[in-house]
């Protein structure tokens, strides 16, 4: 019973995505099997967590209400999907270039890598079923309070009782939903949530790039992600950083996909919703959502702004209610005066401390010849980045990520906590948050291998176009 809410959230998200793919078809259409579950898990888990918070705030979060709201969450997209699937899927009209000849080999290597990573992931979950430090001290303990008897949920946000009571509740809320429905605090629920967030991250990056650029580019990006050991190591920790990375990459990817076509409003709304999910996952997600949403008009896609903002609205309203009504103030810069903060900004040694730690972190991203930066350099030299990819949309995504990284840097410089301790305990997690979105942005500009080959690359007409010719 405890897995029902998680399964239902993923199913509801997948059904919404299937409806979206039916109305605004993807090119190439065969990538649906990758995009629908990946984006579906992200969106469904976010929606279920928002819903659970509303039930908690309304004093209704008992097992029956969870199961009823679960039914509502899945039934609406189910009815839309059943209606939509009777209609023929309109052709996307886009011709897909002939794929890279060795995509099958890249896919096998990616799947083999994923199998090893999953084996390590499951072994870590078995040996540390309650998760790593932040899992049992923050995320899972809060889930236990959220799933406790009526009223106990406020302990999860009580200052003096919890560490970081101001943190938003996406992951804890999702796990609490499982525990409430199952009537148990079984460790399998957070483990399952961690696993599906990890798999969805790989799927969103690979699938979105396969849609935006080509399948080969998606597979290459997936392989770089698989070679990033600090990111992989967080997958089984049961922290909120992998989910936040998923929502950051998913928000940008959905906006990329939506902005490509004239009728991409559904994808834009999904992008907005995933940005709001980022804000509901961790405090670091809030500046990301604001940067992404507020700067989008600069991307040159003015018609896409309204659906993006509308998609983000319900989630951001919940985040605003949580932050303004329920959560205590954050402790990131608390406990020091404005003058002390300014003095820290004026202290150049703090900047060098931050840069040194960032340098060490970059070195630690991988080991030896399989370091992800070496792999990126190799790809850049062989395939080259395409100048025509440098669109305002790409600058928008890059700008959002740079602003996000600058925000992290500013917080480090100004923090009232011991800087070395803070860098040592958090920098790898911040890298993990922006890494999938960074790869998405970078690989969007990479030449697909099939375009670089000497041999002529004939364009293969879309199947629907072939049918028309016959």
């Amino acid at each position, binding site marked *: 019973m405890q897995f029902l809410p998680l399964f239902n959230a993923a199913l509801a998200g997948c059904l919404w995505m299937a409806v979206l793919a039916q109305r605004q078809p993807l090119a190439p259409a065969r990538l649906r099997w990758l995009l629908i579950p990946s984006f579906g898990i992200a969106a469904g888990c976010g929606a279920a967590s928002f819903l659970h918070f509303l039930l908690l705030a309304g004093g209704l979060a008992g097992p029956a209400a969870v199961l009823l709201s679960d039914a509502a969450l899945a039934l609406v997209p189910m009815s839309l999907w059943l209606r939509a699937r009777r209609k023929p899927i309109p052709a996307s009209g886009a011709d897909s270039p002939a794929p890279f000849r060795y995509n099958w080999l890249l896919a096998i290597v990616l799947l083999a890598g994923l199998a090893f990573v999953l084996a*390590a992931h499951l072994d870590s979950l078995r040996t540390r079923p309650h998760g790593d430090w932040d899992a049992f001290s923050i995320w899972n303990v809060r889930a236990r309070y959220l799933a406790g008897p009526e009223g106990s949920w406020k302990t999860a946000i009580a200052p003096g009782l919890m560490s970081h009571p101001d943190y938003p509740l996406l992951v804890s809320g999702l796990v609490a939903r499982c525990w409430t429905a199952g009537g148990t605090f079984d460790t399998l629920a957070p483990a399952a949530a961690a696993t599906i967030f990890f798999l969805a991250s790989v799927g969103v990056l690979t699938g979105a790039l396969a849609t935006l650029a080509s399948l080969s580019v998606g597979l290459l990006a997936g392989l770089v992600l698989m070679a990033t050991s600090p990111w992989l190591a967080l997958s089984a920790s049961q922290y909120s950083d992998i989910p936040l990375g998923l929502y950051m990459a998913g928000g940008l990817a959905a906006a990329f996909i939506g902005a490509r076509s004239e009728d991409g409003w559904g994808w834009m709304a999904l992008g907005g919703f995933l940005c709001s999910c980022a804000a509901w996952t961790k405090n670091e997600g809030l500046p990301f959502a604001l940067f992404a949403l507020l700067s989008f008009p600069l991307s040159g896609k003015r018609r896409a702004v309204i659906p993006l903002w509308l998609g983000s609205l319900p989630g951001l309203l919940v985040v605003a209610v949580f932050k303004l009504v329920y959560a205590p103030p954050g402790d990131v810069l608390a406990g020091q005066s404005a003058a002390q903060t300014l003095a820290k900004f004026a202290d150049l040694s703090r900047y060098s401390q931050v840069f040194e730690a960032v340098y060490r972190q970059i070195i630690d991203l991988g*080991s030896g010849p399989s370091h992800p930066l070496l792999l990126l350099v190799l790809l850049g030299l*062989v395939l080259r980045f395409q100048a025509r990819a440098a669109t305002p949309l790409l600058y928008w995504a890059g700008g959002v990520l740079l602003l996000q990284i600058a925000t992290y840097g500013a917080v480090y410089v100004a923090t009232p906590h011991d800087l070395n301790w803070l860098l040592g305990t958090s920098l790898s997690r911040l890298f993990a948050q922006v890494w999938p979105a960074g790869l998405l942005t970078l690989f969007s500009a990479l030449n697909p291998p099939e375009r670089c080959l000497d041999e002529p690359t004939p364009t293969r007409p879309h199947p629907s176009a072939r049918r028309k010719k016959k």
Partner: protein
Amino acid sequence: MTRRSPPGIHLSLGAFAALSLYGVLTYYWRVDDANRRDPDPYRVEFQVGRVAPVREALPPGARLGYLSDLPFSDVRGSAMFFAAQYGLAPHPVQLEFKPNEVDFVLGYFAAVPDLAKIQAEHSLQLVREFGPGVALFRRAGS
């Protein structure tokens, strides 16, 4: 676009795929080794089991204070507190508390404590001992 020879591209991408797979394998071996050597560095599973009988014995809604022989500033001390808090949830456990804010006090010790001394020092009365180093107190006279 500069034209490059297909074998060069194919070989480079082959090397790329092999290196990334090597990276995954290195990661797998490292995790496997770490999980063998130090499966649960903060002994959370053990500690959750240690406080589980306390949770069972507590009345619904009971609030707890926390008392230990290890300071919170010590990593072992903070790991013990967070594991106990996690294991006892949804009962709130307060690290710093006033006697009138809590219903019980959890005594959670790394070494076997002198319970009589602790009761006298903190004006507490032992409710029950749950194995070595785990005890539940209430305020003396309450």
